[in-house]
């Protein structure tokens, strides 16, 4: 059995153009303008996918509908209200029927489960009577939900621009038990909350998991040795090991964009500084010095700079320095304190947690500190992570008391706050890149 990766699936889609490119392509006519005060989500009709197993066809269509709805950019119509109940990827739709039903965007899909799972999808602009997407995909039979995510990404990319983010996973801290003695362990799931697996058993507290760019290695904070220490965990093998033996306590790890280095905090005698070390081991390099708390390092996508938080000026604020350390410049100047800076994968923005006015806020700013915007505010909200397309941020918020944290997402325009359903309390989300 050949396991087709996402990339080869895309190639197959292009090669399969003979099958699906029979209609003229209507580029750029049906397109969501994602910015602006008058934004309206695009109504889109997605009948159940045609399949010899209609339940399976509905399941895959549901994944696509849910993804697009949760993006906030699309408004999938109630499938029961549609003039056609099942997809048809072979024929040309009767555009008049769809126009009469006020449907501008129509998704026709099919899916079959054999040795592999195969899916074809066409997206039609009913006003132009033209096809805007025509692709087919294969995946291995054990990842049925992924075909739904891959199709969702294809639709998103064509109609909303940029790259998609649905075929991704989130690693996070699953929390359970009373607040004073809570169990915290690592878990991983699809970005929509499905397919949860627990990665540590909770015997020792595990916090702040972060994905490597390759999606297989994770770095996190493990309390197994008493004081927290940075560990590496390989998802494919389940093997893990401590990253470095330096100082009294190591924490707040994050990978460099090439995955070869981890920047992290080292505490010794009450002072916390930032270090970096190769994932292959070796001597950690010290990047900051002094008696302050320097933590939360995050690399720029080109690997050249590190943004971090420091209380060297009094309250925690965001600073920028070269990846080799030295010459840190403060970039946050608003009232209150700033922490957990995270560089957008596109490089254009830095997401952060801000505390001011008795509230926590999730916000974004340019890497020079300009253009700050707060996207979400509550009693507690913390720890942003970016979707790979740089348009959606996930974080966690906790109502306080004996309640517990939940994962939420919001887009960079401050629209569409959503709770991600998890079977336990959840915190510290880290979003993977698009899967390969």
């Amino acid at each position, binding site marked *: 059995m050949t396991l087709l990766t996402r990339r080869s699936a895309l190639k197959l889609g292009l090669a399969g153009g003979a099958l699906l490119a029979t209609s003229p392509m209507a580029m750029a006519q049906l397109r969501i303008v994602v910015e602006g005060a008058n934004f309206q989500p695009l109504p889109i009709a997605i009948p159940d996918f045609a399949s010899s197993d209609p339940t399976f066809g509905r399941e895959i269509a549901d994944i696509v509908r849910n993804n697009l709805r949760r993006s906030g950019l699309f408004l999938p119509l109630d499938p029961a209200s549609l003039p056609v109940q099942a997809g048809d990827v072979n024929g040309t739709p009767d555009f008049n029927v769809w126009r009469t039903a006020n449907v501008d965007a129509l998704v026709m899909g099919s899916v079959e489960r054999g040795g592999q799972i195969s899916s074809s999808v066409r997206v039609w602009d009913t006003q132009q009577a033209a096809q805007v997407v025509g692709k087919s995909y294969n995946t291995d039979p054990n990842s049925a939900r992924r075909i739904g995510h891959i199709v969702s990404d294809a639709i998103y990319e064509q109609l909303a621009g940029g790259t998609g983010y649905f075929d991704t996973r989130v690693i996070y801290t699953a929390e359970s038990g009373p607040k004073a*003695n809570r169990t915290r362990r690592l878990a991983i799931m699809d970005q929509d909350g499905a397919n949860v697996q627990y990665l540590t058993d909770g015997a020792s507290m595990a916090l702040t998991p972060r994905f490597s760019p390759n999606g297989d290695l994770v770095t996190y904070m493990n309390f197994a040795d008493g004081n927290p220490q940075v560990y590496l965990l390989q998802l494919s093998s389940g093997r893990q090991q401590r990253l470095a033996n330096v100082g009294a306590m190591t924490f707040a790890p994050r990978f460099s964009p090439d995955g070869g280095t981890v920047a992290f905090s080292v505490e010794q005698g009450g002072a916390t500084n930032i270090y970096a070390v190769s994932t292959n081991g070796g001597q950690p390099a010290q990047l900051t010095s002094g008696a302050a708390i320097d933590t939360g390092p995050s690399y720029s996508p080109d690997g050249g700079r590190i943004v971090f938080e420091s209380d060297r000026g009094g309250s925690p604020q965001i600073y920028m320095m070269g990846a080799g350390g030295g010459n840190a410049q403060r970039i946050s100047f608003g009232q209150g304190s700033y922490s957990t800076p995270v560089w957008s994968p596109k490089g254009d923005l830095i997401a952060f947690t801000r505390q001011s006015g008795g509230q926590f806020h999730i916000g974004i700013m340019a890497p020079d500190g300009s253009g700050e915007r707060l996207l979400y505010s509550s009693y507690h909200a913390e720890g942003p992570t970016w979707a790979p397309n740089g348009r959606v941020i996930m974080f966690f918020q906790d109502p306080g008391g*004996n309640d517990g944290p939940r994962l939420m997402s919001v887009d960079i325009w401050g629209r569409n706050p959503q709770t991600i359903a998890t079977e336990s309390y959840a915190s510290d989300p880290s979003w993977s890149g698009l899967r390969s």
Partner: protein
Amino acid sequence: MAIPAPFSTALRAAAMLFFVVVVAACSRSSNDAVGLTGAGNLGPGGGAPGSQQEFIVTVGDRVFFTTDSSSLTSEAMATLDKQAAWLNQYQNYRVMIEGHADERGTREYNIALGARRASVVVNYLVSKGVNGQRITSQSFGKERPVAICNDISCWSQNRRAVTVVQ
């Protein structure tokens, strides 16, 4: 984020009850560990001289900090003076200093803040003659609160460094 006062009070009472139970459990295990020195020596709930219970109840096992601060208040220094005197008298104990933060900060920063608070306490005890070889420390950040509510009455109890005699 106001929660109704009666509920908040009940939570606080529950938290305090939980705390008392924990202390009771600790003192029981401490007596198991070092052996009872004689029931007749128990003071008014203060534990036998030299017992872990005496340290917790009479000396005071914890000091509190103001928001985002690791400076010792005069009250904290008075408690640590008593801790140092007691530890200098009873040399058979080792101590673990636990540094904690309240929930009004982010996770990673609070891990560092808890470590800084623990470090301040370690340095103070050493300055008062306690051998540093007897002292270890650990930060729990905001992950192990003792008081649970959404206002300063709980946060102020959670911003603490606890001296655990072992």
